[in-house]
C-alpha cells in the first residue's frame, strides 16, 4: 500500500497538536493521581485546617485494619466469580451463536445490547428484580423454598452483585469470543472430525487452545472490570452492605473518603488500587502478545 507522506517543517506544530490531549491527561489524570499519592502520606485534622506528613502510617494502619483485609477478600471473591461466570457464559453463547448460521447476526446484535447499559442502570435493574419486597426473583425463589433477602444476607448480596456485574460483561466477552471463534479455520474442525474427535473433544483439544490468546486477554480485562469498573453497580444495589459483605476495594475508597471523610486512608487505598492496576496492565502488555500459542 502506498501512503502519501507529507512533511511539516514547523517544529512547534506537533507539540501544539498534542497539547490538548496532554493537557487533559495532566489535569484530569496525572495531577489527581499525584494528589492521591501526596494525601496518602498525610493526616488531616477533623476540621480540615492542618495536614501533617506521617510517612507510611496510613498504609500501616490500612493493612492492620480487619475491615480492609475483609474488603480485599471480598474483592478477590467478587473478581474471580465475575470473571469465571461472565467468561464461561459468554463462551457458551459464542459457541452457540457460531453454530447458528442464518440468524447469527440477529443473536449477536441482541447479545451485545447489555454492554450499552450504564453500570448504575444495570445495578438498579437487578436491584429491582431482586428487591425482597417487590422483586420478581424473590417471589419465584420463594416458590423453590429459598427465602431471598440480600439486605440481611451477605452471601445473597454477593451473589446479586456478581450476577449483575457478570450480566453486563457477558456482551463484551461474547464479542471477543465470537471473533476468536470465527478466526479458527473451519478446515481444522473438519480435519479433527475425520481424525475421530467428537464435537466436545474437538472443542477442548482444537478450538479452545486456539482461543487461548483471546481467553487470556479477556481474563485480564475482566479482572480489571470487576475490580475497578463496578463502583456504580455496587452503589446502586447494596452500598457495600450488608455488614461490609460487598464492600469491594473500589467502593471502600469512596465510602471511607467521601462518606467517612478519612482522606488519608482513602488516598492510601487508592494508591494500592493504582499499583494493582499498574501490575495488571504490565502483565497484559508483557504476556498478552507473547502468550499466543502458535
Amino acid at each position, binding site marked *: 500500500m502506498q501512503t502519501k507522506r507529507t512533511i511539516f517543517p514547523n517544529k512547534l506544530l506537533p507539540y501544539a497538536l498534542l497539547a490538548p490531549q496532554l493537557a487533559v491527561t495532566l489535569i484530569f489524570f496525572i495531577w489527581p493521581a499525584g494528589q492521591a499519592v501526596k494525601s496518602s502520606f498525610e493526616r488531616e485534622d477533623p476540621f480540615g485546617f492542618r495536614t501533617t506528613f506521617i510517612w507510611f502510617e496510613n498504609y500501616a494502619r490500612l493493612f492492620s485494619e480487619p475491615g480492609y483485609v475483609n474488603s480485599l477478600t471480598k474483592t478477590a471473591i467478587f473478581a474471580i466469580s465475575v470473571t469465571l461466570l461472565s467468561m464461561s457464559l459468554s463462551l457458551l453463547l459464542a459457541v452457540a451463536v457460531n453454530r447458528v448460521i442464518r440468524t447469527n447476526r440477529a443473536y449477536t446484535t441482541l447479545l451485545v445490547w447489555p454492554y450499552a447499559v450504564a453500570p448504575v442502570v444495570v445495578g438498579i435493574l437487578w436491584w429491582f428484580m431482586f428487591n425482597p419486597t417487590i422483586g420478581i426473583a424473590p417471589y419465584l425463589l420463594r416458590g423453590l423454598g429459598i427465602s431471598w433477602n440480600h439486605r440481611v444476607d451477605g452471601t445473597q448480596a454477593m451473589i446479586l452483585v456478581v450476577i449483575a456485574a457478570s450480566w453486563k460483561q457477558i456482551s463484551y466477552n461474547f464479542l471477543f469470543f465470537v471473533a476468536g471463534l470465527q478466526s479458527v*479455520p473451519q*478446515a*481444522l474442525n*473438519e*480435519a*479433527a*472430525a*475425520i*481424525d*475421530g*474427535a*467428537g464435537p466436545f*473433544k474437538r472443542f477442548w*483439544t*482444537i478450538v479452545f*487452545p*486456539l482461543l*487461548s490468546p483471546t481467553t487470556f486477554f479477556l481474563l485480564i480485562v475482566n479482572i480489571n472490570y470487576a475490580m475497578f469498573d463496578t463502583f456504580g453497580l455496587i452503589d446502586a444495589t447494596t452500598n457495600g452492605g450488608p455488614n461490609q459483605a460487598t464492600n469491594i476495594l473500589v467502593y471502600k475508597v469512596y465510602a471511607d473518603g467521601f462518606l467517612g471523610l478519612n482522606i488519608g486512608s482513602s488516598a492510601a487505598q487508592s494508591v494500592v488500587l493504582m499499583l494493582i492496576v499498574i501490575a495488571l496492565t504490565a502483565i497484559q502488555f508483557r504476556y498478552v502478545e507473547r502468550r499466543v*500459542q*502458535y
Partner: protein
Amino acid sequence: MATINLVDLKKNYGNVPAVKGINLQVADGELIVLVGPSGCGKSTLLRMVAGLETVTSGRIEIGGKDVVKAEPAERDIAMVFQNYALYPHMSVRGNLEYGLKNRGTPRGEIDRRVQEAADILEIGPLLDRKPRQLSGGQRQRVAMGRAIVREPAAFLFDEPLSNLDAKLRVQMRVEIRKLQRRLKTTSLYVTHDQLEAMTLADRLVVMNGGLVEQIGTPTEVYDRPATLFVAGFIGSPPMNLIEVSSVANKNSIGTLPAKTDIIGIRPDALFIAPQEGASISLKGSVELLEPIGGESHVHVRLDSSGQSVVLSIPGRPHLEEGADITLHARLADIHPYNSDTGRRTDSPVANL
C-alpha cells in the same frame, strides 16, 4: 484397502444443484483424479465422500458399506486439505498422533506408525517442531503423514498442491504418485490443474456443471475426448474447435460422420506443410508467434470465420506476423462433434 462406489449421488444447496447425479466405481488401490473448472462440484463430491457435506440423495459405499449417514470418523478415510489444516498448537508429532489417540490406539503402536510415516516422508527431524516453523513443502508432507499414519481404507486429496510454488508442486506430485503406488491405498484426488490430473491419475473423471463429462485413463481422455467440454478442457494449449463451415476444401468434409458441425484439432495436429492422404486445409493469416523454447505456438486468424486457432510447431519457424498461411490437418487427427449434443459424432465413448 477398499473400493469406493458412488451411486447416483446428488447434492443441492437450497434450490441450487451442485452435484447432479454422479456414478463412479473406484477399484481397490486405484487413484482417481476428479478434474474440472471451479464450481464444477468436484470438491463438493469429495467432501460428501469424506462426510463433511450432507448428501441430498444417492449412495456412497466405502468397502461395500453404505456410509451416507456415517460420521466422518466412522468412514475410515483420511483427507489432505488444500491449506493442510495442521493443528497449529500441536507439534508435528502431535499432529500425526491426534487421530490415533482419538481412536484409542496403544502407545507402542502409535510410536511405530508415526516413526514409519516419518521415515517414508523424511520428516523425522521435524517431529518436535510446530507447523509454523515449517516451510510450505514440509507442511504438505506433514499433512500427508497425518493421513498415512491412520492407515485408512482411502485417501481423499482436496487440491493438496495448489498452495505450493510451481517447482515444489512438480516434485510433490511425483512423490504423491510414488507414495500411492507404494501404499496401494484407494485414493480420490481433486484438482483443477489438468497437468496434475494427467500425470497422477489411474483414471480421470472430468466434471463440469455437477455432472461427469468423461471417465477414462488419461490417454483415453486425451485421445478421444467424449464431449466438446472435455476437448476444450484437457490439453494445453487447448484443442482448436472449428466450425465445419470454415474449412476451405469442402470436398473432404463429406467423409466426416453425419451431423458433424464442429471439428476439434489439437495444436500439434495442425501443420503448415500439406499432408499426405485425406486431409483438410484452413486459410488464415499469422496473428502472433510465441516461441517457447523447443517449440513455437502460432496463433492464426482464419479468413472465413475470424476465429483464432493455435498450432504448435517444433523449432522456430520463420513466419511473418500478418502473412497469409494455409494450415493442413489429417482427417484421422480430427475429432468430430455435434454442437447441439456436445458429443462426438463418431463411435461414442462407452463410459458416459
